[in-house]
């Protein structure tokens, strides 16, 4: 996994993406934003079938997929991605939606290992934040919408954690790096590390030095509820 990270870092400028979005207005907007961020859009599709086909290729680093796609306009995007990840568990996918549903997040997290994102379309408005999320998913990380995380966190009893530990857990689950968490909470990275260790001890999770794996462990624990 660290190897993946480095590889992604190396070609950070030249990421390649697939965009699956049926609404032209939004597809064009997404492509513009991605290209302004230096990410190549190698394929832009507007239906579940064409997406499934595009996902079989190997020429992309991340797929950005709308949950709702033709023909039935329910959750074809999500289902296509979950199917694809059952054969390629590390297929990097960022799901976009006009609403978030913890159930869908659960299905998404259950299929595959990391390299997954689930964001409200609203978040795209924060262009730099969105591009960071795309890169994070491409690099094997996770990017979950705060609304999804809030839903997952609230569903689990966290009485054992302190207020600060809960904040750290929430930010971790959103897929933020230790540095980002430290910056956000105005504490040192060392303090973040200490909180994370406490969280892992209190939740009975096996300690691991790797950021990404720690996030996955936390998500798996949240998801188990």
């Amino acid at each position, binding site marked *: 996994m660290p190897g993946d990270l480095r590889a992604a870092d190396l070609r950070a400028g030249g990421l390649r993406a697939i965009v699956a979005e049926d609404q032209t207005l*939004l597809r064009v*907007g997404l492509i*513009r*934003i991605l290209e*302004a961020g230096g990410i190549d859009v190698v394929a832009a599709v507007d239906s579940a079938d064409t997406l499934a086909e595009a996902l079989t290729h190997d020429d992309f680093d991340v797929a950005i997929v709308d949950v709702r796609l033709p023909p039935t*306009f329910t959750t074809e995007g999500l289902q296509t991605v979950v199917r694809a990840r059952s054969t390629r568990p590390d297929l990097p996918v960022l799901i976009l939606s*006009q609403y978030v549903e913890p159930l869908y997040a659960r299905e998404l997290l259950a299929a595959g290992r990391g390299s997954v994102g689930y964001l409200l379309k609203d978040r795209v*408005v924060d*262009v730099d934040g969105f591009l960071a999320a795309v890169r994070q998913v491409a690099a094997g990380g996770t990017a979950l919408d705060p609304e999804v995380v809030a839903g997952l966190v609230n569903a689990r009893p966290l009485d054992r954690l302190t207020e600060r530990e809960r904040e750290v857990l929430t930010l971790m689950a959103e897929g933020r790096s230790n540095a980002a968490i430290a910056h956000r909470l105005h504490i040192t990275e060392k303090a973040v590390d200490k909180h994370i260790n406490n969280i892992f001890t209190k939740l009975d999770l096996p300690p691991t030095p790797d950021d990404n794996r720690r996030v996955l462990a936390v998500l798996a624990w949240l998801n188990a509820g």
Partner: protein
Amino acid sequence: MRDSFAVGARASWLAPLRAVPARVDRDGFLERLRLTAVSAALAAAGIPALALALVMTGAFPSLLSLTGFLMLWLVVPVAAYLTRAHRAVTTRLLGEPVVAQYADADWRNPVTAIATWARDPVRWRDFAFCWYSGTGGLLMSLVPPVLLVGPAIHVIIGLAQGSVVWTVIASVLIGPSLLVWWFVAEPMVRGRLRADRGILDQSRVQRLQQRVDQVVRSRAETVDHNAAELRRIERDLHDGAQARIAAAGMNVGLAEKLIHTDPDAAAELLREARESTVRALEELRTLVRGIHPPVLADRGLVGGIEALAIPIPIPVTVALRVPRLPGPIESAVYFAVAECLANVAKHAAATRAWVVGEHDGERLRVVVGDDGRGGADPRGDGLAGVARRLAAFDGTLEVTSPVGQGTEVRMEVPCRAI
């Protein structure tokens, strides 16, 4: 004979009964005369009824023989004709529906037909009615005509036979007889008709059962309709305003990023974003209008329908005398009229159209008509949907659309003004 009475008689003969004042005047006299004639006709109808009753009763013991079988097979439908005529007459005279629903039976097959009839309570009502109409009913109905003309006939008979005593007694009786007639005619006829209704009208339970069935059906349709509407609104929001606002947000976000490096591109993105928000607002307005039009809330049905008529490309005459009605009914009728007018504009090829309506305190009646090509299909998606929507309020919709002769959609909804 009963048929000719029901169909052929002048409408005024069968006008609903009304209270007749005891005061002696021309109007009261004519009304009593009418009721006496009706009573005489009811009495006369008792004779064929008695014949039918005797035949049916006689057929029971011989049911196992072919003759009895065939007799029943022929007579039961005849009895139904008779009672049907009585139901029609009673309905009109009492001003309340007297109805019955026969069980479905294929009369061409005597065996199954008689088997079905035997299990059909309405047929047994027919049987009971024939007996009653030919016996007690007949006697009851004879009272008013006999009181009116009986003594006079006896005077004539007395004169013809040269019997002074007979003539004198009969002449003396004319006065009291007419007096009794004056007070008895109306209650007698009313009593007879109520008895008819008691026998002929389908039982209360059966009618309630039918009503419940109808309510269950219309409720299910309403729920379906509402679910479909909600789904449509969700889709409209998701694909319309929500998507446009998201796109505007993306444009603004990107413009923010580009504003220093590529100000022209940023300005273009902002312009697009502005257009997107305008379009989103338009779509929201359209959607709101489709859920509950503000003009309907402000001005009621009259204003709402006048507003509907404005964008129709042909002249639409709106003549409505309607007070404010409960919101859900205003809404249902508004959308019904909107659908009709949209059909006129889309399909009718009409030169003019009209919306006429009034509320009589109990029911709202609205007619949407045009002079177009006609041939509208009442089972089409739009009109069927309208009918379902009205059915939720016990409303009805009726389409008359002969090819080449325009279309008229008549809606009726029972409701009270607020």
